[in-house]
């Protein structure tokens, strides 16, 4: 759409400042995994991508699976970022699936409300989109650890669900974005869950606090790992970007370490 100044996060995610190389939605067909920890929340990256997905193309659509916060939270946050979720919802571009109280039935009970039903709902929403809106669809999941909790701790169900979503989005050139809390899986037995998802991801965004502790001017550091695959030669290169960030109400500033005056 309009040529905005691209910040470091946009560049790391694959937006190009050169209009000739610019795809309308560079996250199409890709899975972006955002990882954070207790000290530093990575939700701002989701908000950033959510906003970008609306501004990228006039007929893009977003399906938001919210396990962590109610709609009014996101509405207020995005409004300050300059994006009106209510009007996007009214024009059929924003679909909010409230999963806050979703609890999958335990084994043995009929699986009406399980993750399979959630996936079917996503498919149904997408199929009901107009053909215009179907071109640029983004599915956002906030967040995976709550998804696992809703599945009663069955990491297999959670992984299966993610696989299904990944297949759906990669085959149809939709974008998939998910947030996960990395520090929950740092002990041995559960780390395979995290590793599987990291392996699946095309772009990995790791949000950490600064090694020196919290600061008012720099809220943390980000490492973006972009696994670009050049399909012609089958060569895959990995681009790594490291920078710091400061979160504000109406914007997040990204800058290289030490470059902030």
């Amino acid at each position, binding site marked *: 759409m309009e040529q905005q100044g691209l910040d470091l996060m946009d560049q790391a995610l694959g937006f190009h400042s050169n209009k000739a190389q610019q795809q309308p939605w560079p996250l199409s067909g890709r899975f972006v995994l955002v990882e954070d920890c*207790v*000290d*530093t*929340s990575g*939700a*701002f990256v989701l*908000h950033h991508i959510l906003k970008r997905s609306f501004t990228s193309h006039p007929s893009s659509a977003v399906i938001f699976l919210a396990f962590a*916060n*109610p*709609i*009014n*939270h996101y*509405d*207020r*946050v995005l*409004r*300050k970022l300059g994006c009106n*979720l*209510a009007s996007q919802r009214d024009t059929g571009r924003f679909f909010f699936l409230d999963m*806050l*109280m979703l*609890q999958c039935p335990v084994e043995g009970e009929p699986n009406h409300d399980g993750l399979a039903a959630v996936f079917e709902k996503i498919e149904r929403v997408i199929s009901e989109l107009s053909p215009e809106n179907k071109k640029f669809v983004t599915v956002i999941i906030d967040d995976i*650890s*709550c998804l696992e*909790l*809703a599945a*009663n*701790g069955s990491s297999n169900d959670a992984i299966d669900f993610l696989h299904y979503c990944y297949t759906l989005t990669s085959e149809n050139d939709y974008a998939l974005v998910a947030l996960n*809390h990395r*520090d*929950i*899986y*740092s*002990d041995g037995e*559960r780390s395979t869950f995290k590793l599987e998802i990291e392996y699946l991801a095309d772009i990995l965004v790791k949000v950490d*606090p600064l090694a*020196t*502790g*919290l*600061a*008012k001017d720099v*809220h943390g550091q980000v490492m973006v790992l972009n696994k670009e695959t050049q399909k012609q030669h089958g060569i895959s290169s990995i681009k790594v970007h490291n920078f710091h960030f400061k*979160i*504000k*109400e109406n914007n*997040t500033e990204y800058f290289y370490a030490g470059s902030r005056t």
Partner: protein
Amino acid sequence: MATTRTRVSSFAPNLSSVKSSQHLGLKNGPNGATFISSGISDLDKILGGGFTLGSLVMIMEDAEAPHHMLLLRNFMSQGLLHRQPLLYSSPSKDPRGFLGTLPSPGSSKDDISREPSHEKDLRIAWQYKKYFSVPQLNINTNNGGQHDYCNDLDLRKPLERHFITSNNVDCVSIQNSQNLDVLKDRCAEFLAQFSRNEGGSSSAGRIAIQSFCSPQCKYSDMEWHMLSFIRSLKGMARSSNVVVVVTFPPSLLSPSCSKRLQHMADTLLSVRAIPDEDKELAKLLTGYQDMVGLLNVHKVARLNTQVPVILEATTFSIKLQKRKYLVFECLNQAPVDGSGGSSYGNYDGCSRSTKAVSLDF
């Protein structure tokens, strides 16, 4: 024929039911938040106003010390003083007995607002005041106004009977429960009274759940069950005018379960005991003898916003002023003697996650 619509978000909760500053014990905050007092004025200041209505506060206990009970007592007592209904749950057989230990407001002659009396004496150093970056947060000359929101609670004076025996308090014992379903239902009933959506009560309510995963409970090894209880409690609380305070001992849970609980918390605090007669610590910190423990603020609730709260310091010493009033103070490094050269000043706590044994500042 276009009708002009006033820009009202259809997602916004119906806040007209909360009459804020006129209502006793409620305070307006940024981003549409409403605060209630934690019962400890220092903690309210640290958190930027108090506990946010609709938020989940989790306090990580130290298995070796009961300091979390001090926080709970003040929280519960403050609510009862403001006639805010309370639901209290504990793993003891008779939770009502605990209510007898709730503190009462101290007598007014024990004024604990720390007047900077030293300023009268240090007239020589006046020009250095401009270098102090610590903001003088509302040194209240109007003590009456402050007491409407947060009372100075005297831990040695029990709360008057009529506050406890009123219909405001409901107690649940979870000692003999096979699982948390009973507690979940009681919480759901309680929260429904304060729901923001269907014009529930316009006042605030408080839920205090003490040591909810302690080993004496039968469900304490059912980690997913406990996690989903907290998750559903958080979801229900979010759309109500209630603050839920839950304390739990992280050392008795698996690390990943403890981390999940920490992530679910909107406000996350932890209390730690400090050893008596520790000579190293006595050298390092001033006022060590008066310290009862340490408080760490890991996360402060920021509902409806993405901006994190960065505090000047995250570690505070817990002291009992005059052996009655709970206060939190920034840690002060003791002056280093000899040619060390480091000056006497405030030692900001780093936010690094602290291990149980070593004390990281």
